[in-house]
């Protein structure tokens, strides 16, 4: 079958899709977008989390045919997605100043905020930068799914409590970090978002 859908803002068409193929397979093997990961392929680990019409889903559990006419955002499109959201709703964060974490206290998780990564200027979503700065990335296999889920959390809950973060990310397994640095990264992104809204 043929499937027409939007991926990261671009209209896409996948041909010869077998009915049993998942959205994850189509993204990874047909669209050349392997950022969404294949750790369990049964909806337990969250490493393939994408936004489907805005809702975080496990791409491995979505049949390719179900995305006909719908919009998908993957980790590859996350920076653009966050930028458009920022343009539409500047700040967006914790304008009241009642954030769960202050920027000052979040800065202790910020190892080296001005550090160049590859020597090239790469535009990143705030949550992506926060994951790098807080040391939330080790092997990185869980990272794409966690980023998509955490970005959605901060979109809807700009100043989450620690328990809010834990609840929102409880569908995403990480085997390397013990999750502490992931919590730090989300707190850091929330605090930066809050400061941006205030300034």
């Amino acid at each position, binding site marked *: 079958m043929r499937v027409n859908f939007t991926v990261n803002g671009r209209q896409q068409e996948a041909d010869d899709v077998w009915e049993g193929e998942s959205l994850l397979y189509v993204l990874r093997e047909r669209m050349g977008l392997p*950022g969404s990961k294949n750790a369990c392929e049964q909806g337990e680990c969250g490493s393939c989390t994408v936004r489907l019409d805005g809702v975080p889903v496990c791409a491995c559990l979505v049949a390719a045919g179900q995305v006909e006419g719908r919009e998908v955002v993957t980790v590859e499109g996350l920076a653009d997605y966050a930028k458009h959201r920022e343009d539409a709703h500047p700040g967006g964060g914790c304008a009241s100043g009642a954030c769960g974490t202050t920027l000052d206290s979040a800065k202790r998780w910020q190892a080296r905020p001005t550090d160049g990564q590859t020597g090239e200027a790469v535009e990143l979503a705030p949550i992506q930068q926060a994951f790098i700065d807080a040391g939330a990335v*080790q092997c990185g296999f869980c990272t794409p799914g966690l980023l998509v889920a955490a970005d959605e959390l901060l979109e809807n809950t700009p100043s989450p409590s620690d*328990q809010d973060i834990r609840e929102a990310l409880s569908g995403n397994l990480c*085997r390397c970090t013990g999750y502490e640095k992931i919590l730090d990264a989300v707190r850091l992104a929330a605090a930066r978002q809050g400061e941006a809204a205030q300034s």
Partner: protein
Amino acid sequence: MTTRPEATTRPAATVPKAQNAPSGTPTEITQGSPTKGGIGESTLRPDGTLKVTGEFAYSSDMWHEDMLWGQTLRSTVAHAEIVSIDTSEALATSGVYAVMTYDDLPAEMKNYGLEIQDTPVFANGKVRHHGEPVAIVAADHPETARRAAAKIKIEYRELPIVTDEASATAPGAVLVHEGRDDHHIGHVPHPNIVHRQPIIRGDADEAAKRADVIVTGEYVFGMQDQAFLGPESGLAVPSEDGGVELYVATQWLHSDLGQIAPVLGLPEDKVRMTLSGVGGAFGGREDISMQIHACLLALRTGKPVKIVYNRFESFFGHVHRHPAKLHYEHGATKDGKLTHMKCRIVLDGGAYASASPAVVGNASSLSVGPYKIEDVDIEAIALYTNNPPCGAMRGFGAVQACFAYEAQMDKLAAKLDMDPVEFRQLNAMEQGTLLPTGQPCDSPAPVAELLRRVKARPLPPEQEWLTAGADGTSVDVRALPGGLSNTTHGEGVVRGVGYAVGLKNVGFSEGFDDYSTARVRMEVINGEPVATVHTAMAEVGQGGVTVHAQIARTELGVNQVTIHPADTRVGSAGSTSASRQTYVTGGAVKNSCEAVREKVLELGRTKFGTYHPAWATAELLLEGGKVVTDGGEVLADLADVLEDEAIDIELEWRHRPTEAFDLRTGQGNGHVQYSFAAHRAVVEVDTELGLVKVIELACAQDVGKALNPLSVLGQIQGGTLQGMGVAVMEEIIVDPQTAKVRNPSFTDYLLPTILDTPTIPVDVLELADEHAPYGLRGIGEAPTLSSTPAVLAAIRNATGLELNRTPVRPEHLTAT
């Protein structure tokens, strides 16, 4: 045939180097001039941006024009003769290019193995465990390959199984491997025992007479899975010279190479391996998984072949942590001094040897833990059974022992009516203590201090689930046992606190030539000095590449460092295992940098030596792109010294040698270095439902020198959580009647989520080991040891139950 169009934004780091090269090929990663930070600083990962944008190519992301997909067919029974295999229907399936079995193996060598080559590439007339590879299919779509594999007809004649020590060594027990001729068979009491290591020191029976109290215990440790998230995967591409290019996620390229090439019938230089992105390892990638199968299919079909296991297959595709039964006896005087220890540790190695012999060596030599006990009688064995093969996992033999000896320490303290931390401190080993192997510990051993630090930390507040509601009693169920299942609002919930400390060796032991190799190049590019570091070290997430760049900056005074992809075009780096890579490959990078620096200074002396006497007389350093004296005077720019010359040096580096343990007494200087961590666990237990919530898991660890403090925390917290996992949820369940795995999925094998995870405060101590580069100590494994027994101790403290098995399940707490 699948087709994959070009990605709309092709990642910079995965641009193919040559025409027809696969996409996802790793290329150099450069940390540019804005990055500063040598050793001791929390510089960020060079691959961080690629990993957060989804552009970092893991082995499962590799893709090649015209590639085929490989699918393994695995045994459905644990022990059986193969009466017949019929592949005809599979071969006739449209889209299938090849089906291979044992009979298709091209070379005389048909087995592989880390130490003992006992593992057939495909089952040879017999399967020895559930999930053993029998055949492999290559097809143009993964689903076609799966369906074709399902059409292969195998007739089994089932054999009796052995599953534990009693059945494996019973009179007339079926032998898992008949006709063994490996180097351990001469000293084991039964052919179903892979290896046995006794350690006898002093006279435990005589010392026991001095004891005022004696405690014994039988402990059981469940089978844990590494559960790395990136599945076993890779791509094999046949090359024109009859060889093969293999891109794969592994822990040790050269160890794989030495096992792959003989089975393919190729010289090692025709099997060119490159490390692809690795999604975690934790020991589970030490053994061969899909490497040989993919190469065989690529050479057979003349096409690139990709193999990616799904999670179900991954549970059969790698070895697990050895489940163990441990018997311990300790004695102590009434003033709290340990008199003696006797133990017997039985590890289930499953159907193939894998790393079992080395795990036995660790379990026995570290069985006493970080305590001073002069009179010991120790025996550790690993069995051959028809259970799933077991081998390396973080902690490697020391984990099982720590679980048992720490339970013993608590029992002794209770019997003596002493504080469990004070009792441990009274018996804690120190620098200079002799281990049961007779080896002195010749670097700091701050065991008592680590315990003091975790104990001194304020306890988390009671009843934190009570939130500031209007009536002061509203409850956040997410902080309670059972969590979002809303099973309690605090009724029946009791708190417990427990402590544990552990001892882990660093590096490969028992006389192994545990070397590494580093190639370092220095040149001037666009007026700036640049260092390139090329090793075969497997970056599996630990941050070795970050540290290599830091070492190059510190030693060579550059900012810009390029990390070359790891491959077999440079000498072996040894394994990313045993907490050893920062020590050994870090040491190799430092050593090669020093050699490069000497060459730079020689060049500088030749060019500029006559201009300043300090060239001949002063201690010279490379800093900030310049040659400077130790007094800080600038002598020359590196750019002027080097001009268009490149200095390129590849050297091997070795730490102090070790020796084998005596096979009868276990004596010998077998270990390179020790690593210590202590934990305090605070748990809350719903005693009605048997649910456990770990509230806090505080760790104190001596790291010698934190080369990258941020990464050090990540290692300690990650290791701590893996230890917690096997305390309260993680276990591969093997049916004792059939030896079949019951829970090979993330639905049924439970891993800690972020909601299950406590806060993990870490206290890092840095007491230099003068024998190690920069004084560092391997850190990755020690926190996995003490985490588990600390959680168990806390649950015992909360419930008053004995709990001699891990993981603890609800029925163990409710006696149902």
